[in-house]
């Protein structure tokens, strides 16, 4: 139990320090800060995904379901009851965890795994999209956040504040990851990922630990959901967006299952490259950026199927460090 080696924490501190000066380094250029905030919130999603997808090895394709539920619950609480997101985000996280429990308990109880688990979670996003589209729920309309700004609403005219809020969540998410990674739960989850039957034979309560991982992951996403809605400006049934959901899982896989550093790098890198390509050539040759993006993914798939994490390990080996779980 614990946060692992001191070196991990030092590396985290350095990364956080670098991320903290980014707005200054960018001269408070609002576009770049918004881009950094968007990339960073995806890093939070991917690192949270790492708990269920990386450690526990469950190919979960429903991140947008938990993000959407948590975010929309928080936003509605603010809109109709005036409850500040600082409280609402916890309730949103709770709602996401309740959903995760409702989905996860029967799923794991009846041993749905591998591709079937992936299909089930992918359909969860579609189901929520359809349910919230009903006139009794959100209907066809776009819903707007209150037109107010300030820390009470977590809505700001400039993006640096929200960037730092996301940075705080990022630190919390990484610490939770480290805690899990270095605890009994982490070892159990990895055992489940490698061979579920063998893990069960060793006496691990597979269902309990998988559910634990799912709840943690859903809780983090639900908590972050409101910030994602703030970046989007509106929410509607279309917040439950399957392509975005898939892209989070893809970033997690490209990063390397079970690696925090890999998840972080792949989210920051892929999101930034995607936006950079769209911003530079998207208007002149529409669609080309998607092609380049796809080719990049294929290259990673061919040369480093274990993900970016494997690249780090290779570098570490060359430099002479051994991998200690970061």
């Amino acid at each position, binding site marked *: 139990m614990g946060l692992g080696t001191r070196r991990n924490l030092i590396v985290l*501190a350095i990364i956080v320090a670098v991320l903290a000066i980014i707005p200054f380094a960018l001269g408070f250029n609002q576009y770049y800060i918004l881009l950094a905030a968007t990339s960073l919130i995806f890093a939070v999603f991917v690192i949270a995904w790492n708990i269920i997808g990386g450690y526990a090895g469950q190919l979960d394709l429903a991140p947008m379901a938990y993000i959407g539920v948590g975010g929309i619950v928080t936003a509605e609480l603010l809109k109709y009851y005036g409850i500040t997101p600082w409280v609402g985000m916890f309730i949103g996280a709770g709602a996401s965890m309740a959903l995760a429990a409702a989905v996860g308990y029967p799923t794991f109880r009846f041993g749905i795994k591998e591709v079937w688990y992936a299909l089930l979670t992918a359909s969860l996003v579609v189901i929520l999209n359809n349910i919230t589209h009903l006139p009794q729920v959100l209907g066809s309309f*776009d819903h707007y956040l209150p037109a107010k700004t300030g820390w009470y609403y977590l809505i700001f005219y400039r993006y640096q504040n929200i960037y730092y809020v996301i940075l705080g969540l990022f630190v919390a998410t990484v610490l939770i990851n480290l805690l899990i990674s270095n605890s009994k739960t982490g070892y159990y989850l990895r055992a489940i990922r490698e061979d579920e039957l063998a893990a069960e034979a060793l006496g691990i309560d597979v269902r309990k630990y998988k559910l634990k991982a799912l709840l943690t992951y859903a809780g983090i996403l639900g908590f972050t959901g409101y910030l994602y809605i703030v970046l989007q400006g509106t929410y509607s049934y279309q917040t439950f967006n399957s392509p975005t959901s898939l892209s989070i899982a893809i970033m997690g896989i490209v990063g390397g299952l079970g690696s925090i550093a890999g998840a972080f790098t792949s989210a920051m890198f892929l999101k930034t490259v995607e936006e950079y390509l769209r911003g530079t050539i998207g208007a002149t040759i529409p669609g080309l950026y998607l092609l380049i993006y796809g080719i990049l993914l294929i290259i990673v798939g061919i040369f480093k199927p274990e993900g970016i994490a494997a690249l780090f390990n290779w570098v570490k080996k060359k430099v002479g460090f051994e991998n200690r779980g970061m």
Partner: protein
Amino acid sequence: MRLVSRKAISKTASAAIIVIIIIAIIAGGLAWWQTQQKAPTTTSSASPTSTTKTSTTSSATATTPKISVIKIGLVEPLTGKYAVFGLEAKEAAQLIVNIINNELGGIKSLGGAKIQLVVQDAGETPDDARLAAEKLITQYHPTIIIGAYISRLTAAVAQVTEQNHVILFMDGLVDSLTQHGWKYVFRVAPKASAHGKSAVDFVLDMAKKKGLKIKTAVVLHEDSIFGTYTAEGAVLELRKNGVEVLDDISYPDSITDFSSIINKVKADNPDIIITIPYFHDGVLFAKAVQAANIHPMFIAGAGACGYTDPDSIKAAGKAVLWYTNTYSYNPYRPTKWNQKIVKMFEEKYHKLPTEAAGIMFYTMMTIYEALEKAGQMYPSNPLNADNLRKVLLSLDLTDNNSIAAQLYPTGHIKFAPNGDNLYAGTAVLQVQMINGKEVPVLVWPEPQPGVHPVFPRPDWHGSGSG
């Protein structure tokens, strides 16, 4: 942990030192930034849109600043599932910019200043659209932005332009976009509910001309935000005119089977059906109506999607004969400039300009008129957003005094304080059989030469059997 040796500790120490140094840099940077921040914000808020190489910004004497280029930003979905709309809008915008810069000689009141188009891809999701808008504003400082066709994307763009005090011309049609009290948004195009209203007005107008009485109606719509608002507009207009709305049915645009809805319509037996389809659902519906032998007095579409476009006619064949639909733009409008621009568009892109292009035509031309007038009204600071807003609110464009109105279906553009056009209206096209071929023709408000609207439907059983 002690045993890990001095090396680890020294590493910790060095890392700690690095962190402290970085924090110190942050603190220093913050202090520096705050001292720096004061000056730029005040000037930039005074004239946030001064994009051009003005010789001196603070002109003590009210001399006309030298403006050579006016940047207009375009944020449209150029990739993803909405790309078809955004790409056409971009083509249209480029065409109009060419006309303004070359044929009209730029903005004359601003010394022949040229318009430069800066384009960004709004992508598919609101966060992409927001990034695109933010990039446009921080890197190019456009005077005016146009975008983003899809309501969610437009809302995201509007939040950015509103904060930065940049005028946004919206080509998204959903009603709610102008209901937020946003100050710097304008919309020339008819909003969704105006489409629904126009479809009803057309039918009632025709019935009156033919001496028929419409008592009952059924409204059908796909359940997107656009379809819902369009249907609302239709239902309100029907009720206002004393027509009983027997049913208001919504369905997902991915619908594959209309039989239960058709049964409902058959049981209701309305005089008219107002329908707001997306695309393929319109084809399905028309075929289902044909197969079910439903013969109401009239079936009118609304919302510019389906029925009268070439693809729907090809797919549905005879089933869509006599169907109508409403459009934000009328490519057949017989004004001089409209004919000319349609011809230029066809020569350049080898297709007829439709909804997205048409909205861009008159939106760009309205901007042109506004800039001309701004140069006369505010010669010292014509590109300031607040000045431009006042100019826009003072515009009253008609066929006689502007190019923009000649491109607009109603021929009249005047903005309400919320940014919507007070004289918004649509054109109605009908599928008719001409020389043995099904073609869409303009029938309303004024039919194109040699064309008469077909009303009621020739297969109507008459009021007796209804």
